[in-house]
């Protein structure tokens, strides 16, 4: 079971946003909105450059390694995790070249009895700022560990 002593623990991370990572993400999704790939098209829509799509922050959680760092520290088995919920609140855009400064926090760990065994619900709340010290977004991740 996830280590309840870790509730409130914060895992900091930083991540440099690359244009290529934005492109890979929207191409995997199949999202052909030009604001994610073409700076000229993005400027026509009022952005100063290409922007990152709404679910991009999760890329930094995974690629920065903070997700596995937190999961391992909590004693959660990666192969037993299911993603239950994901939420975002947006404050500022993410552009290529930005540095995201993130804090991943363990908000809650709850045990529940499921039909086919016990489940642990692990809630993370992540806050992202950028190199200008602007709040970029907040992210909520709810995971379920099947035991």
């Amino acid at each position, binding site marked *: 079971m996830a280590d309840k002593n870790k509730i409130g623990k914060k895992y900091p991370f930083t991540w440099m946003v690359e244009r290529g990572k934005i492109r*890979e993400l929207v191409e995997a999704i*199949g*999202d052909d909105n030009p604001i994610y790939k073409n700076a000229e098209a993005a400027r026509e829509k009022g952005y100063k450059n290409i922007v990152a799509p709404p679910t991009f922050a999760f890329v930094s959680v995974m690629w920065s390694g903070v997700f596995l760092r937190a999961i391992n520290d909590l004693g959660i088995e990666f192969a037993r995790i299911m*993603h239950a*919920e994901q939420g975002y609140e*947006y404050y500022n855009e993410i552009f290529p070249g930005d540095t995201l400064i993130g804090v991943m926090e363990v908000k809650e760990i709850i045990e529940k009895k499921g039909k086919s065994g016990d489940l642990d619900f692990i809630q993370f709340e992540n806050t992202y700022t950028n190199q200008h010290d602007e709040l970029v977004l907040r992210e909520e991740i709810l995971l379920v560990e099947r035991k």
Partner: protein
Amino acid sequence: MQPIFEDIKEGDIVINLMKPPVTKLQLIRYAGASGDFNPLHTDDEVGRASGFNGVVAHGMLMMGIAAQAVTNWIPKSSLKKLKVRFKAPTRPGDIIKVTGKVVDKKIERNKGIVTCTLEAIDQRQDVKISGSFEAALPLKKYI
């Protein structure tokens, strides 16, 4: 055209996006793009051992598709909140349709705040994700 607050009514279906079938190659690409290398999404053996009929899609790929549907309707910069619950696994071959409906409207600080529900279903009408989003839309008098 950017949607205007006054033109939108509660109950309007504002989002209706049909995607091509999800493919195994797409899951491999999404794994590389996102950095989520859980083999449940790329190795059929692992999918079967986990009680599925093979690989299943990343939840975040499904959320990315839902977000695509949202930002096809409103500008990305108008999106203020987005939240989803993952209800059922998506498998290669599934044809996903995303719909969104306006459920609330209010004016806050000279912006029109519109709240919508969001749902992604497959060709069998199975609900894959359900959720909601909030958008800040311009008012007519400021255009």
